[in-house]
């Protein structure tokens, strides 16, 4: 597997301009001759489909929801970063770049991150032009707040619904193109495989989720914008349908998968309670602007928080990290919460929670101000937990949130399969080992609105593409493989439920295995144990799982079964990657690698690279390739937020 990142030469600040000039263009009259498939219509997908259709390409967009507006990007709460320096507090493109590189623990590619910081300012302008109702100051200018991992206020927001408003902006741009005929929208289609012809991605196979038909679509390029794989853990903050299938199928067809063990654990989620729980709900990180994190100083202190006097509380983040305080990056906040709970200082009925207290902020600013800032988040918390954060502190605990690993892409966002691009959370490129707050929305829109158009034009302009349609044997063959796999899942179910397990039961086992052994803290022994358990779990799935219903119908059990089958295969990549990376990095503490003060210890000598895994066969261990990371403009240092 050849890994050429295709980073343009020259000074960092000029690379993107240099690259855009060097890239081939497609003349407007010729663009309509090219067809592009976009899978997924979240921030990356909707913005890419709209942008490409605006330019004149023919776009086929696919989503597994009933409407593109449902994509999980809609659930992002807190905000989106941009190096606008509207607050005059010393922000700049280089500072956003630096914060992002550092926040990612120096495991991202410099050139990509710099470009992200550069185009961040365009994103805000684009969204404002679309009518996204960002928060405003009284003079009418855009308001900002600060977010974890940053000492400047560069986060733009629309109440606690920033992701929703940005997605609706992209969705409206997409809707405009659907109305005009530039985009053909296919709702309720799930991508099952990618079709490769002569080494190039030329189409996809989808399952029509309404009638079960296996459909094939051909195009000149395929864009995967299908999000992350956090649901491998069963419990995560991801929407229920988020899955790895599209990315994993691409991987099995030859696309390298980068850093699959890089999973972000978000510090402020509502803690787990019962075993029926289906997902975890995130509370925006912006809450840490005003909320103070604490636990009782005494172990096993079960008193009501109001009964615990000030001097018996440990504001551990403020004490340990005086300059960043409660706004330390997510990995630091998460790891410290786990540390407190592991030390027996956790609160709540499960003892797996810490307090996030607004009492001081309410005293300082008044109830009205706090409610205006966080009202909807408070309501959401109260609905779920039946406790009012205005009266008693919230309880929070870390949870799986965002996956920084993804399909390996070069500077053009192209995977190792020519013609197959990956955008947004689906690729690995910009976040290193720990995505900072308010940066995922930024990447999704940067890729879709401002980057992919250049890449696609260059690909078309520099590649001689043969004519291919769905009659080609690669399409019939891939579609047949998809059908067989579905039949196999359903065949297992004949004979009723005697001794059979449900899809969710297997998924929960997989999730627990990953969370316990490949979560926030990992060690060699645990990872090897998890790796040894996987074949057994897969066997349980293929031999005993019961999928009711038929294939030629709406069948939500079958949909889930397909996704879990892929998680079961993909989990091996996650574990092997975690095993191979014998350093602590970003969100993940490799227990064998920590400082004397129990801080994560990175190993730049041996692990300053992107780990790219190549699928080599169902019964073969994957092959590891490395893309070395070069830092010419920043010096990797031990991250300190003290």
């Amino acid at each position: 597997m050849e890994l050429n990142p295709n980073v343009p030469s020259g000074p960092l600040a000029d690379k993107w301009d240099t690259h855009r000039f060097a890239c081939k263009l497609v003349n407007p009259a010729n663009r309509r001759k090219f067809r592009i498939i976009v899978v997924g219509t979240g921030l990356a997908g909707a913005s890419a489909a709209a942008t490409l259709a605006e330019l004149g390409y023919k776009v086929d967009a696919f989503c597994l929801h009933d409407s593109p507006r449902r994509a999980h990007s809609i659930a992002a709460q807190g905000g989106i970063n941009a190096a606008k320096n509207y607050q005059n507090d010393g922000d700049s493109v280089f500072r956003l770049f630096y914060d992002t590189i550092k926040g990612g623990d120096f495991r991202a590619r410099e050139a990509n991150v710099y470009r992200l910081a550069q185009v961040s300012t365009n994103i805000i302008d684009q969204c404002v032009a679309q009518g996204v109702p960002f928060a405003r100051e009284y003079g009418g200018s855009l308001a900002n707040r600060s977010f974890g991992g940053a000492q400047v206020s560069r986060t733009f927001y629309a109440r606690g619904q920033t992701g929703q408003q940005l997605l609706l902006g992209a969705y409206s741009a997409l809707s405009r193109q659907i109305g005009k005929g530039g985009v053909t929208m296919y709702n309720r289609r799930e991508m099952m495989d990618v079709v490769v012809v002569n080494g190039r991605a030329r189409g996809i196979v989808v399952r029509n989720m309404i009638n079960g038909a296996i459909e094939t679509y051909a195009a000149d390029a395929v864009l995967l914008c299908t999000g992350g794989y956090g649901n491998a853990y069963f419990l995560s903050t991801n929407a229920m349908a988020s899955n790895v299938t599209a990315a994993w199928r691409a991987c099995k067809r030859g696309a390298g998968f980068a850093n699959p063990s890089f999973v972000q654990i978000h510090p402020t989620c509502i803690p787990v309670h019962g075993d029926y729980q289906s997902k975890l709900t995130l509370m925006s990180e912006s809450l840490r602007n005003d909320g103070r994190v604490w636990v009782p100083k005494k172990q096993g202190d079960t008193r009501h928080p109001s009964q615990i006097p000030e001097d018996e509380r440990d504001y551990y983040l403020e004490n340990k990290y005086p300059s960043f305080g409660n706004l330390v990056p997510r990995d630091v906040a998460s790891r410290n919460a786990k540390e407190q709970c592991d030390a027996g200082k956790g609160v709540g009925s499960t003892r797996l929670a810490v307090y996030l207290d607004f009492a001081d902020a309410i005293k300082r600013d008044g109830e009205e101000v706090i409610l205006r800032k966080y009202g909807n988040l408070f309501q959401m918390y109260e609905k779920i937990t039946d406790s009012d954060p205005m009266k008693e502190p919230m309880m929070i605990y870390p949870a799986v949130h965002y996956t920084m690993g993804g399909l390996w892409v070069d500077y053009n966002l192209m995977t190792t399969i020519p013609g197959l691009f990956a955008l947004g959370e689906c690729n690995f490129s910009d976040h290193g080992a720990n995505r900072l707050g308010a940066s995922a929305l930024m990447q999704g829109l940067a890729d879709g609105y401002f980057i992919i158009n250049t890449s696609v034009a260059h690909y078309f302009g520099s590649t001689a593409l043969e004519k291919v349609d769905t009659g080609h044997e690669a399409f019939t063959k891939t579609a047949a493989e998809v059908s067989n796999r579905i039949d196999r899942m359903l065949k297992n179910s004949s004979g009723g439920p005697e001794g059979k397990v449900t899809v969710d039961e297997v998924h929960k086992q997989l999730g627990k295995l990953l969370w316990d052994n490949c979560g926030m803290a990992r060690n060699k022994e645990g990872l090897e144990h998890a790796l040894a358990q996987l074949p057994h779990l897969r066997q349980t799935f293929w031999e005993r799982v019961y999928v009711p219903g038929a294939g030629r119908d709406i069948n939500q059990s079958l949909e889930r079964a397909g996704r879990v089958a892929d998680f079961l295969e993909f989990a091996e990549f996650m574990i092997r990657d975690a095993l191979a990376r014998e350093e602590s990095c970003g969100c993940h503490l490799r227990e064998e690698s920590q400082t004397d003060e129990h801080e994560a210890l990175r190993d730049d000598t041996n692990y300053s690279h992107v780990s790219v895994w190549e699928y080599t066969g169902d019964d073969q261990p994957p092959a590891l390739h490395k893309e070395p990371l070069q830092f010419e403009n920043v010096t990797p240092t031990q991250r300190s937020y003290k």
Partner: protein
Amino acid sequence: MSSIDLKLVIWRQNNGDSLGDFETHVLRDISTDMSFLEMLDVLNEKLTKEGREPVAFDHDCREGICGMCGAVVNGIAHGPEKETTLCQLHMRKFNSGDTLVIEPFRSRAFPIKKDLMVDRSALDRIIQAGGFVSVNTGGAVDGNSIPIPTETAELAMDAAACIGCGACVASCPNGAAMLFTSAKISQLCLLPQGQPERKQRAAAMVAQMDKEGFGYCSNERECEAVCPKGISISNIARMNREYLKSTFFGR
């Protein structure tokens, strides 16, 4: 943690062409901390274990924001709690021994797909008719060059918060989609960015509502009562004014 027993009377329908009917199930020991959808998950696991087909229902984020879930519970879209989606309705709002009648969102413009799933793509087509600002990517001016007073931005945001779940349609005796449509029209007509297309937008979106088979507002206010995001019917009044302006004064 306490638990309750429930009787579910739930709508089953194989597809849009077949006839549907109610089916009764008894669930015991339902934790009151569960969400409504987690309760349905429990029902579905039970049905699967019994070798029967689970109930199909739409859902995704389970955080009250994607707008994909929704069913009518005891005659009320999204259930009895105000400003709450079905996924954020918790079982502590019910009592042990309660009977819950669960039906899909019913409306002529929302054909039933299966059980509790309906097709709400008519709402997408209303947006496609004009619910956007026609601006291409890449040439936007600086965001601060379009100053917008806080009050206006907040008012626009109040309308923009609509999640497109369709509860307004399901609860309206006329099957009107006017709360949904007016929310988008309001957002864009309040903001400077929406001005150039203001009139044709209102006309086009209203025309598409008609075409989809939605009814008209007769001030029943049921939509506002069930809206999980508290969208106000004052938006409908604004939409009516916008529509009148567009018909009387043209483009």
